[in-house]
């Protein structure tokens, strides 16, 4: 009886812990037939999107380890990456060298932004997520100041194709013609007519190895300790503030590389928009994969990207079939992106409060029992 019960419990717990991914799988099962899309198309789409987003989503993992929640500040890294791309475009560098040059140029900027963000978040302990979100907006303003007003006027930009007709400021959309898919196609491979971006996946794999390895370093261990209990970590002599800043710096740098990979895959850069939604989409994807604010794994990242983007691709068409309206599907996916974050955050906060209460209640049982025996 008790074995059966514990088995039931295990299954129940599995469902509770994985409620979000399961919900999305159900959605996919229900909506894919409605959307009337070929499996080949879907698979090709998923492969493209995995190549596009994996690096960015994985960039979120390290701050989670350090207990700083979902780092909305990855848009800072994305902006740094775009600044690098602008310069590379200006200089007319081509292909894979352009890719690496962009990374090298933007890296110091990403480190600087990450370091600043880390300091700001250290001043906002316990509300890192709202703060990093607002930080993204704030730096976006500074980015506009730099790109829209300073480039071409204060900072020399010679390539007239990327400068606005008025003579300064970068154009809204830049065709990354010399960079498009340069990494994706470095090692060409096609299976059943589906193009596989091998090199990009190799980069993602390297990042995964890095994350696994990083967790087993001294710094990784320190981050875990800081993430679980800052006070204890501090008392053990771990430099808490510095460790937290490093977590954000690493995340920002990874996001910077991630954004460059993302844009080389897409092939055009919307100078003032490409980075804006990155934080939200990456975080929503990670949460859909079953991660929480306090715990996220590589597996969550990949499962999340696939499920979230199935929803993304399928929803407008399913909306059209179901409601006779593609628009409703568009709004549906916006709704889901935000709602999933809201729900995940609320559940986490609720669970945290409940756990504190539960810990106290378990004490209470002792008390009641003790009172019972003494009577």
């Amino acid at each position, binding site marked *: 009886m008790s074995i059966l019960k514990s088995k039931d419990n295990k299954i129940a717990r599995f469902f509770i812990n994985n409620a979000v991914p399961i919900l999305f799988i159900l959605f996919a099962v229900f909506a894919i037939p409605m959307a009337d899309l070929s499996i080949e198309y879907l698979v090709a789409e998923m492969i493209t999107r995995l190549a596009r987003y994996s690096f960015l989503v994985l960039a979120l993992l390290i701050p989670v380890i350090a207990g700083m929640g979902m780092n909305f500040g990855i848009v800072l890294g994305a902006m740094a990456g775009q600044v690098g791309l602008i310069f590379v475009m200006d200089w007319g560098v081509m292909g894979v060298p352009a890719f690496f040059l962009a990374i090298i140029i933007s890296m110091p900027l990403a480190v600087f932004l990450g370091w600043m963000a880390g300091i700001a978040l250290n001043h906002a302990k316990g509300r890192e997520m709202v703060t990093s979100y607002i930080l993204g907006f704030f730096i976006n303003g500074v980015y506009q100041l730099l790109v829209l007003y300073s480039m071409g006027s204060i900072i020399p930009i010679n390539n007239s194709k990327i400068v606005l007709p008025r003579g300064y400021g970068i154009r809204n959309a830049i065709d990354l013609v010399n960079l498009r898919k340069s990494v994706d196609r470095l090692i060409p491979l096609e299976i059943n007519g589906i193009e596989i971006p091998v090199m990009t996946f190799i980069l993602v794999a390297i990042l995964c190895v890095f994350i696994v*390895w990083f967790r*087993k*370093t*001294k*710094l990784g*261990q*320190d981050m*875990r*300790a800081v993430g*679980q*209990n800052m*006070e*204890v*970590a501090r*008392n*053990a*002599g*771990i430099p808490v503030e510095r460790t937290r800043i490093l977590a954000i710096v690493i995340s920002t740098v990874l996001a910077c590389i991630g954004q460059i990979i993302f844009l080389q895959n897409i092939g055009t850069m919307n100078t003032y928009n490409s980075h804006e939604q990155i934080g939200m989409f990456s975080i929503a994807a990670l949460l859909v994969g079953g991660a929480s604010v306090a715990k996220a794994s590589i597996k969550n990242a990949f499962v999340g990207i696939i499920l979230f983007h199935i929803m993304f691709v399928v929803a407008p068409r399913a909306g059209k079939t179901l409601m006779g309206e593609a628009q409703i599907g568009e709004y549906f996916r916006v709704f889901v992106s935000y709602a999933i974050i809201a729900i995940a955050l609320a559940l986490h906060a609720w669970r945290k409060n409940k756990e504190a209460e539960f810990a*106290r*209640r378990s*004490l*209470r049982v002792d*008390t*009641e029992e*003790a*009172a019972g025996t*003494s*009577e």
Partner: protein
Amino acid sequence: MPDDILLKMKNITKDFYGNQVLTGVNMELKRGHILGLVGENGAGKSTLMNILFGSTVIKETGGFTGEIELDGKICNFESPFDALDAGVGMVHQEFMLIPGFQAAENIMLNRELTQRNFWVDVFGERLSSLKNEEMIKRAQKAIDTVGVDLDAKTLVSEMPVAHKQFTEIAREIDREATKLLILDEPTAVLTESEAEIMLSVVRRLADMGISVIFISHRLKEIMQICNELVVLRDGKLVKEVPTNETNPEKISEWMVGREIGGGPAREAPVKQTEEMETVLKVRNLWVDMPGERVINVDLDIKKGEIFGIGGLAGQGKLGIPNGIMGLYPAGGKVEFQGKKIKLNNPRFALDSGMAFVSEDRRDVGLLLEEPIDWNISFTVMQTQEKYLKKILGGLIKWRDDKAIAKLAQEYIDLLEIRCTSSKQLAKELSGGNQQKVCLAKAFAVRPDLLFVSEPTRGIDVGAKQLVLDTLHEYNEKYGITIIVCSSELEELRSISDRVAIVSEGRIAGILSPTAPLKEFGALMLEA
């Protein structure tokens, strides 16, 4: 052999902003000996240990005078890390463990065994790889040395309290340098059988040549394992004796005994309570207040008496009023004036005619960001709808700011609250005046029964006497029944008609305030 002396503390003196907490303490500890450190709350035990352990609190508050000699060398620890390097380890009362980590990871926390790799040369030491297997082996060895049956791979969050305690000890042992271990009430949270194991572990450590300072209020344990013991009282070392030359009665006398003339004198006669009517009946009360758990309390409070509740900190005396007033989860039966009191419902308790001055002035007692008049009038306004003007036939209950200011002014005059006006913010007042505001808040509801917790904690001597006199006056003049919880026995004896001592969540006994001190001491220490 003088070589045997590991630790010498000479003439240690410390004050916190003019408030003398330690005066000229001298003590010695031999290698491999266990020293029991006993004393009431506030006797200076923790300050002494903080000095020894190099806690930053000490430095931040102006340092100390005196000399610490460890192993023949004079030490001046800038921080706990210096102390650790010199071989002083400390196990705190609240666990310094990371719950999601294994025992091994906690034992090796920030002292991990690492291996250099390529990236270390590029980015620095922190990128070196961890040697997990070796760490587990080494941690297991430390645990085995402690002599308990615990797998180094167990998660701390899944351990019983005793094992957490052992993990902490193992961590200290693993530092090869550790010569001296400070254990702050290590048995307080353990069950009896766990405590037994704990004691044998401590004994073992001593046999290995590690000296131990053992802080406990359980004299039985001290008698059982300590070689010597030191009694602190009011910041002075009262006694340093070998354990086998003394007995619990003597120790408790040393602990609570005051010099003649010290402490407030009792002026009013003690009321004879046997014949008086019972106003509050408490049966099987349990209260889940962290750090002040009440397990099973029965009490009968008589109408018009002042009832004192004493006992050491953490034993549960504060849990009693907090539980009855509904601030912490509680169970059991409470009857007030023949009416059953719903527990876990502050409003019900207030409506029944009880009021409470909390021990936690800053977090529970006051609205720090609001003016004095709000602080005083809020409770009575909310519970009794006083100081409100009804407009539109009671549809709008308008706060009567004038009446509130007048009420506040009355109490400011009555209790001599020093402030610029009734509009001054509560956070700007001194501790004593804040306490008077808390009292005024409780008096303003005109209760039949008043709980007062730690009425004089953190306030100066003059204010202390005034607070106690005010309580006494209200008791005499208006016949309010008052229940005072305090860590200061002298204070309870000076004001109460009866004094109960709480120990380990239960009433250890009820005494007349005129009973000899030694009897109080015995109840407090379960000797």
